[in-house]
């Protein structure tokens, strides 16, 4: 397997312009001869599907929910970054590029990140043109707020529902194209296999959730925009249905998986309240603009927070990182919260929590202003915990939130399987080892609106695509493989529920491959996970059949893939003998407990290749050159 990132030559700020000029185009009259398949309808998928259809391509788009508007992008709260410098505080494309590379702890590809920063400007323009109701100042011009890892105010937002509004903009564009006939939208459908013919991605095998029918859809190119795999931890901020199946099945068909162990833990989520807990709810990073994070100075101080005077409070982020304080990046803030809880100073019944306190902000700005900025977030918190953040500080704890890892892609967003493109959180690119807040929305839309329309056209115009028939051997085999997995799951009839296996996998992953990893722990996981997987295939109980809606079967298929992915993540974490971003190995830390990178030996993308069932995957390395951002110890002090 060869990793060719196809980065264009030339100065970094000209690479994307050059690439677009050098790319081949498809004649407008010829576009309607091509058919592109898009799996996933979130920001990346909907924007790609709508844009490609607008250009004249035929598009079929799939999603697992009952409507494309339900994709989990809808839940993103805080905002979207762009280097507009509307606030005159020193922002620029270069600065956004720099902040993102540094924020990613120097494990992202510079050229991709620079392009992302360039595209950020167009994304805001496109969203405004679609009617996204970004917050405005009294002048009528766009408002901004600050986000973690940046000392400029560059985040555009729509209350605490920015993801919702951006997704609705893309969704509305998608429905416009559906009504025109350019996009065929097929909801309530899961992709189960990638179809590869003649070494190229030529379609997908899908399962209709309502009828159980497993069938192929063929095309000229396939785009996977299926989101992140955080649900391998069972508890995460992801929606319940979010899964790794589409990219995992593609991995098994030859798409290299990049940096699977780079998972992000978000510092501010509502703590777990019981065994039955089904997911973790995010409290947007934007809250840290005005909230102050603290725990009692004294171990075992169980007084109500209102009774603890300031002198006895440890505002630990302000103490440890004076320059960035409460707006330190997520990996830094999460580890700091874990540290103080490990020291026995955590709050809440379980001792796994820290305070996010708005007392000072309410005093300074007044409750109405705070309500205007965060209204819906405060309500969301109160509904879940029955505590009022206007009166008592919020209790928060880190939780799995985002996956920087994903399928490896080159500068064209194409994987190692020709014709298979990967966009949004599903790919590995741009965020390195840690994603900054407000940049996921930016990346999904950059990929879908502004990159894929160019690179897909280039692929189609420069590739000989033979006709593929539904009854060809490769296609039939893929269908049989998918149906075989379904049948196998249904006939086991064991004693243990799918959810029970999922919870146990999640526990193993959180303890062994979570915030702090050790060689011993990871090796233990590499014994525990295969054992759990084997028990799954002997003892799982999936009731019902394959001829009607069967949510247990859907869940079982997803967990089966998580049980394989988890092992790859631990293997990746074990091999990367350094700490960087969200990947923290206790053996590799500075004296102050910060991540200690090993740039001499690990400044590369780990791209794993599937070599067959039951065999260890092969590691390929894409070396990373940092020509524009000087490698340095990442400090936010």
């Amino acid at each position, binding site marked *: 397997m060869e990793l060719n990132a196809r980065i264009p030559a030339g100065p970094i700020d000209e690479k994307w312009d050059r690439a677009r000029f050098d790319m081949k185009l498809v004649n407008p009259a010829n576009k309607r001869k091509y058919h592109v398949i898009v799996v996933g309808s979130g920001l990346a998928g909907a924007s790609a599907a709508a844009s490609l259809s607008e250009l004249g391509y035929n598009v079929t788009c799939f999603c697992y929910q009952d409507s494309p508007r339900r994709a989990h992008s809808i839940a993103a709260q805080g905002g979207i970054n762009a280097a507009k410098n509307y606030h005159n505080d020193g922002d620029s494309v270069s600065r956004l590029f720099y902040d993102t590379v540094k924020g990613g702890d120097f494990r992202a590809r510079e050229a991709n990140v620079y392009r992302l920063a360039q595209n950020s400007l167009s994304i805001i323009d496109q969203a405004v*043109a679609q009617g996204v109701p970004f917050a405005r100042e009294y002048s009528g011009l766009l408002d901004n707020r600050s986000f973690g890892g940046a000392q400029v105010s560059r985040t555009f937002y729509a209350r605490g529902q920015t993801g919702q509004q951006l997704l609705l903009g893309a969704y509305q564009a998608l429905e416009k194209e559906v009504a025109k006939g350019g996009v065929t939208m097929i909801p309530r459908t899961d992709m189960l296999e990638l179809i590869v013919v003649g070494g190229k991605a030529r379609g997908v095998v899908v399962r209709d959730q309502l009828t159980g029918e497993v069938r192929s859809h063929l095309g000229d190119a396939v785009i996977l925009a299926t989101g992140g795999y955080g649900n391998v931890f069972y508890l995460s901020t992801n929606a319940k249905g979010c899964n790794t199946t589409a990219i995992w099945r593609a991995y098994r068909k030859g798409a290299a998986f990049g940096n699977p162990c780079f998972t992000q833990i978000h510092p501010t989520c509502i703590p777990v309240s019981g065994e039955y807990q089904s997911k973790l709810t995010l409290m947007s990073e934007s809250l840290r603009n005005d909230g102050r994070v603290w725990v009692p100075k004294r171990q075992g101080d169980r007084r109500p927070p209102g009774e603890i005077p300031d002198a006895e409070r440890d505002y630990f982020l302000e103490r440890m990182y004076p320059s960035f304080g409460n707006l330190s990046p997520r990996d830094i803030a999460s580890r700091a919260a874990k540290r103080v809880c490990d020291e026995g100073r955590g709050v809440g019944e379980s001792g796994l929590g820290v305070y996010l306190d708005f007392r000072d902000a309410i005093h300074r700005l007044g409750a109405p202003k705070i309500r205007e900025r965060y209204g819906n977030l405060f309500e969301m918190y109160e509904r879940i915990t029955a505590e009022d953040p206007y009166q008592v500080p919020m209790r928060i704890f880190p939780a799995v939130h985002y996956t920087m890892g994903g399928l490896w892609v080159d500068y064209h967003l194409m994987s190692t399987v020709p014709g298979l493109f990967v966009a949004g959180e599903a790919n590995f690119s741009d965020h390195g080892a840690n994603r900054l807040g407000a940049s996921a929305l930016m990346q999904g839309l950059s990929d879908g609106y502004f990159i894929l329309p160019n690179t897909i056209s280039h692929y189609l115009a420069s590739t000989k695509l033979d006709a593929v028939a539904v009854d060809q051997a490769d296609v039939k085999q893929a269908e049989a493989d998918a149906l075989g997995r379904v049948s196998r799951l249904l006939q086991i009839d064991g004693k243990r529920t799918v959810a029970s296996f999922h919870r146990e996998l999640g526990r193993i992953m959180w303890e062994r491959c979570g915030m702090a990893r050790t060689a011993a722990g990871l090796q233990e996981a590499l014994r525990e996970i295969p054992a759990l997987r084997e028990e799954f295939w002997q003892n799982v109980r999936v009731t019902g059949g394959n001829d009607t809606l069967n949510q247990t079967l859907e869940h079982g298929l997803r967990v089966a893939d998580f049980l394989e992915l988890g092992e790859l993540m631990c293997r990746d974490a074990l091999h990367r003998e350094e700490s960087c971003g969200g990947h923290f190995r206790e053996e590799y830390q500075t004296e102050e407990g910060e991540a200690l990178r090993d740039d001499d030996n690990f400044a590369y993308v780990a791209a794993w290749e599937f070599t067959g069932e039951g065999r260890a995957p092969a590691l390929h390395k894409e070396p990373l050159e940092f020509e524009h951002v000087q490698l340095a110890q990442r400090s936010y002090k």
Partner: protein
Amino acid sequence: MNLTLQVWRQPSAAAPGKFVEYAAAGISPDMSFLEMLDVVNEGLIAKGETPISFDHDCREGICGSCGMMINGVAHGPERGTATCQLHMRSFKDGDVVWIEPWRARAFPVVKDLCVNRGALDRIIGAGGFISAYTGGAPDGNAIPVPKPSVDAAMDAAACIGCGACVAACPNGSASLFTAAKVAHLGLLPQGQPERFRRVLTMVAQMDAEHFGHCTLYGECQEACPKEISIDTISRMNRDYLRATLTVRPEGDLAATG
């Protein structure tokens, strides 16, 4: 606490449905309503019975997937709360809880508590968008938007497309859903070029989907988990009236905005 559930079970769209009683035992008040159903379902699977199917995804009140009539009220007893955000502390030990899918001609039942809400997507496809093709947009600050306009637009844009408004309405009308989108886009300068054509096409689609008509009961805004106001319906009606008086077929020289 222990509760008794009366749950609508319907094996498929064509098959008849009925209420079935289940015991929900040992429920913690901190559980969400859907977590309670998860626990009940785990028990059913262990006994070899078919678990209750229900739509859900984000579990944080923003995707609009979940939706059930709980004791006859869309999304249950709490104001501004979607089913997934409802917590069991809103119930008491010994309560009987009746759980049904959305009831509306335009939302055929798929299985148990799941319904088909494709009609809402088709209303959006009929005009709930601004035809801004990708690329070529002016600078975001080129068109100032008055703060009161964008705040009102955001209030309307907060609709999650769950269909509670339809389920709560005695007429099964989708007016609040349609009006919310008409208001969101109609309040913004970007939405002006298509404002009046939009309301005509969206209302036409709404009617074609066999939703009922609005007679201003106001049940919809009480049920809406995002507390969208029926003022949006008044606005839609005004825009609709104006549109019928002023919108001309394309190509007519006397056409106005």
